[in-house]
Structures are given as C-alpha cells and as structure tokens.
C-alpha cells in the first residue's frame, strides 16, 4: 500500500483498559481513517482485546460489525500495559511512531508524552471541567453539549440522533488534528499536541444554539410538529420536507395547490405561525407517491425534499453504486461484507478498506 497518501507514517493507537467505550469509538475512527489512507496503524490492545470486539451490532455470533467497521486496515498488537515488559514494548513502538492516539484516563499517558510521537488525546470533557473520573456515556455527553435538546417535541423528552454521532464527530475532529500534526512534523515544525473532548465537539457541531442564544437571548430548541420542516408519510415510507426561503415558490408550484398562494404562507414567519394548516394542504400530495417518485418530481424543480432511507436501503442506492461508495470486502472468516469507504474521491480514486485484524495479528 506504498502508493497511499499516508503510507510513510506510523501511528500507534493505544486501547487502554477501563476506558469508556464512547471514547474508544472516537479514537478508533480517527485511526481507521488514517489506516485506510495508508498509514501503518498499530492498534495496541489488552491481552483480552478491545471490548468493542464484543459490541453490537453483530455480523455473526460474537463478531462485531462495529469493530470491523472501526478497525479496517489496522494491525493489532496485544500488550499488557499493567506489566513493565508491556510498558517497555509500547515505548519502543512509540520511538518509531509519528503520532499516538490514546484516551483519558490512560495508564500509558506518561509513556506517550515522553516519546517522540505527537500525542493525540481523546477525552470526554474539556480540561477546564477537571472531570476525568466522572462517569460518562455518549448519550449524556449529547445532553451536556446541547445536541439532545434540539430533536423531538418541545413538551416531550429530547431525542438523540441515530448512530454514534458524538463519538464519530470527535473521531473526525481527531483525524483532522492528527493530519495537522503530521503536516507540522513533515514541514520541520514542532507539532502541537492535540486534545479532543466529546463534550466540546458536540457543542461545536451544535454552534447555532449558542450563536442564536447570544444574538437573541433565547436558545433554539426542538420544535417538533411546530417546525416549518416536517416528516410526512408517502406510499412507501416518509419524506422530509425541507427548502430554503428562495425555494418556497418552486415547492408551491410542485404541490400545485392554489391555497398555498395565501398571504399567510408567503414568509417563513407566516408559515411557522400557520404550520398545522400548511401541512393539511401539503400532506395529500405525498400520499399516493413513492419516495423515489417524490424525489424525482421535487429535484426536477430544484426542491430539496429528502426521502428517508434506512441504512439497509442505502445498499441499493443507485447514486452510491455509481460512485462505488460501498466497498465489498471479502472477509477471511465472515465472507462477503459491504461497508462505506472513506467519503472522498481523490483524483477519482477511492480508498478500499482492508479487513480488521484478529487480536495480536
């Protein structure tokens, strides 16, 4: 894989014991992106393995899809960091590494910081909170960072976004920090240490909440069925109604109901104030049509309505097939698997993920 862009770099990913899983998912995603781009990524696991090996969803009994996705293209090294011999072995690997990904609290932190590798640390909370030992989950971090407050009905409980969004946003941020560290090193500069906390990344992606709260004194929050943008049922599922201010006229022409010409619906404020009546007019147009029919009719007029697809349905997406976004991986034990590649094409090239390693392989 020497022609891959990060092939000349070595990255050590330390999977210490007793680290919250939500941090591990971030660390492993950052390492996976670097590995798929060609870096030699050494995943240091305890002798009984990264617990993500046993985390759902599963591909077969005991075979974790989560682990397979997050650890493609890596090498695994089993090291017991509780023993001196293990700590010495880690220090030797770090001598030849460019950067080291690890989590707080890490028993190995001092070894990493005293090595020539640039530290990339994943934590739950900002340094200022001084809360390294506070119990944590991805869900409670979403609540803390304000993202939970944004989804659902105003009078009902707030909702998390599907997937591992707090961990993965942090993993993407850690990858960018890692790339910056490598660029600094290669330019002969001292690379800054990088620290990513899930709480900070969650707030960072949710910046409109603080921006609006500062500007107006009132925080935005979940609007549910009071929102101008609703989910409506159609013949074979659901469609998200979404449009910009300038696309509203095209949306009216698409639906073709003269009642939409009412002055009450001419402005965003008016549509929000009359959202129930508005959707009484909009909904029937969707009822007899499929998601793909709706998407084709809407796109023909430049209206960005969004048909809702499940992950399973994306396996049949024509767009994804045409771009080769979903790779086929022939796994030595699990057979044919399909999974997303890195979401970039580089001069038309994709980066095919290689099978995640067995423990110590």
């Amino acid at each position, binding site marked *: 894989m020497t022609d891959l862009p990060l092939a000349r770099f070595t990255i050590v990913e330390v999977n210490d014991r007793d680290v919250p899983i939500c941090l591990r998912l971030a660390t492993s995603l950052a390492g996976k992106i670097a590995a798929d781009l060609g870096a030699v990524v050494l995943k240091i696991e305890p002798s009984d393995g990264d617990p993500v090996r046993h985390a759902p969803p599963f591909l077969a009994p005991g075979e974790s899809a989560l682990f397979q996705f997050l650890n493609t293209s890596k090498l695994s090294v089993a090291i017991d960091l509780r023993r001196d011999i293990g700590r010495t072995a880690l220090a030797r690997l770090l001598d030849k590494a460019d950067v080291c990904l690890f989590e707080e609290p890490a028993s190995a932190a001092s070894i990493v910081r005293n090595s020539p590798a640039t530290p990339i640390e994943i934590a739950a909370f900002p340094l200022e909170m001084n809360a390294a030992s506070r119990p944590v989950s991805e869900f409670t971090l979403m609540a803390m960072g304000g993202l939970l407050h944004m989804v659902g009905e105003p009078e009902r409980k707030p909702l998390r976004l599907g997937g591992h969004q707090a961990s993965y946003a942090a993993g993407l941020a850690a990858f960018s920090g890692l790339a910056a560290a490598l660029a600094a090193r290669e330019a002969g500069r001292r690379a800054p*240490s990088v620290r990513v906390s899930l709480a900070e990344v969650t707030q960072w992606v949710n910046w409109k909440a603080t921006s609006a709260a500062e500007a107006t004194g009132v925080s935005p929050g979940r609007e549910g069925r009071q929102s101008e943008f609703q989910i409506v049922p159609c013949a074979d599922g659901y469609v998200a109604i979404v449009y910009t201010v300038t696309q509203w006229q095209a949306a009216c022409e698409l639906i073709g109901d003269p009642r939409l010409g009412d002055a009450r619906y001419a402005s965003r404020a008016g549509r929000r104030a009359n959202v129930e009546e508005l959707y009484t007019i909009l909904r029937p147009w969707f009822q007899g049509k499929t998601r793909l029919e709706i998407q084709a009719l809407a796109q023909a007029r430049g209206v960005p309505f969004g048909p809702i697809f499940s992950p399973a349905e994306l396996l049949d997406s024509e767009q*994804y097939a045409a771009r080769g976004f979903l790779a086929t991986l022939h796994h030595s034990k699990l057979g044919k698997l399909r999974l997303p590649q890195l979401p970039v094409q580089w001069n038309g090239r994709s980066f095919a993920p290689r099978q995640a390693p067995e423990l110590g392989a």
Partner: protein
Amino acid sequence: MNAPANEPPLAGVRVLDFGLLTAGANTSAMLADLGADVLKIESGAYLDPFRVVGKPDNHDGWWNRSPQFRFTNRNKRGLAINLKDKEGQRVIRELAAECDVVVENFRRGVLERAGLGYEDLKIINPRIVYAAISSQGDTGPERMNVSFGSTLDATSGIASLTGYEGEEPRISGMDVNYPDQIVSLFAAGVVITAIMEARRTGEGAFLDFSQREVASFTLGEEILAASVDPHRRQEPVGNREEGIGQQDAFRCRDGRWLAVTLVGGSVPGLESFCAAHDGIQAMAALVDRGVPAALCNDGADLLQDGALVGVTLARDGGGGLVKGLPYRLDGHGVAIERPAPDLGQHTAEVLRTLLGYNDGQISKLAKAGVTSTTPTVSGV
C-alpha cells in the same frame, strides 16, 4: 522545507475559499485556524447566504452583521470579485496561481462555467489541491441534486434511526443541520493530507466530497450489519441503544431533563426518582453512584458554563462571539487574529500585495463593478 519550528502547522499555506454557509466556509475556517492564509471570495452579486439568513436589520451595512457569518468566517480575509464577469475570472485565476488550496461548495458546474474548475486551475497551478464539497459528489446520476441541511439527515440514513419509538423518523432540523457540520471536520483533514502530498510530489489533487456520503459513513456499522442481515430492524428506538440496559431522558421536579445511561440492567424507579428531585440533585445522586447522568443543556445554559464550553467559543477583536475549535492544540483554543471580513474588505489589499496591482488597476475594477463592497442583488 525550512521553517521556523514554532510556526503553526499550516503557516505558508494559502487558500482560495469559495466556501458558503457551513460545509464549505467552515472547512476553510479550520484551515485558517491552523495557520493558513484564507482568502474568501464572494461578490456583490452573490453573497455567502449566511450574510442574508442572519441579517439582523435592514439598515445600511446589514450584510456585514450576520452572527452566523461572523461565527464561521473569522480569521479570513474577504474579497468581493464577480466570478460571472470575464475580468473577475481573470483576476481569480491570477489569485489561484498564488494559492495552494481551493475550497468550494457551489452546485456542480458553477465554477467550471466560470473557467475556474479543477481542470482549468491545474494548468495554471499543478500543485493546487481542489476540494469540491457537494451534496451528492461530483459523479453519479444524482450529482446535480440539490439539498439543504436536513435533506441529508433523510437521505443518509441518520433520520431513519432517529425518533420516538414506534413513531415517524426525525431530522436534526434547521437549527442544527447536522450533516453540514460534520463534513468540515472530515474534509479539513483530507485537505491537509493532500497538501502534504502536493508538497512532496509537486502534484495537487481533485478531492470530491459528497456530504451525503459523509453522513452515511457515520452509520458504517449499521450499513455493514445490514449487508449480512437485510432484515435487521432499523427504525427509531427513542434513546435506547443496543447493548445498553436502560438509557433515556427523564423530567425532573424543576422541569429540567436528565439524561441517564445504565449500561447493565435497569432501575425500575428511575423515572419517579427524577420526578421527585430537582435536576441537579438527581444528577449528583446518580453520578455519585457511578451512573452516567447529565442535564440536558440548551444554548443559553452553555453560554453560562465557561468550563463546559471549553475552547468551542471565542471572542473576536470587537468582542463578538465566534466559533472556536473542535479540538485544542497544546492545550489551547484558537487565537482570533481578525474578525470575519466585511464584504470586499480586503480586495484592494490582496490585489496590491499578492498580485502587485496598482491603484489605477484596482479602481478600474471597482468602477467596472468587477469588485465591490456592497450587494448588487435585490430582494434579499
């Protein structure tokens, strides 16, 4: 490369930034925060839409006062050059010859029609790294599809896994537009990787980012699991999570919502326990017992908690609140060297210092309307 050891990682890198709203403009903001010199190109005929959606009033200069624009475009210099004008296109091509990176998130084809596509700029500058960020990517039957924020919650799969159990799916909505946020976190890292390659090999790259793919990538394990089990249940399950005993938000006595995760097993009386206590008490009791619990914050709560905010917010020279960093470097957040630019604020400065234009050339461009400092669009 010889460089002082204490310079920031991207010192010496120059970015031609056509980025709009979050996906594009924030990718280049992340590069600016790492030390790159970012030249944001707008025009009087086409403002970054954040100047418009965030306008606070209709008084003169409204286009320079949008909080969303200010949040996202700090640490950049701003130029207003009409890229639909032949003369404007010529000036931009001259700028591209002096840049290392282009970031753009126009609809596909816009820059090609202006003679500013990758194939055009590669001839002028073979080292250019050209990051094209679009809804669906640069190829495929849906390449011209439009999307707006939560369109991609829907089409990426995220919405299908979000919502109350047994009810319809949910989107993140206009106040979050989640898929727009994460693309810049990924794109910045890949652009930096390509800058390293360009330095090493002398060859740039066309980087084709699909925002929908970035969002679907965050569901990698779900897509993978569905590939071996097409009947896998994929629908909203509230706040529950596979493999976790009990997880939900509970309303406390004072009306605040408390998020709680019980990894193994469940506690039957948790809901009534929360209802009988104020949020902060219930949280403390659970955390004391080693249970992850956190109050559900809104934007106003976050503004008041400096420790929790960490480095995610910063103040510009005028005291305005702006976006900070998603990570810290050497323990610190971002230094805001300059506030977000007024429209066309640095056009003359950059043309003079970077391209060697004289005052006559600069005023000629302004008189011809190629450059400007006011919007020429009506009805915004």
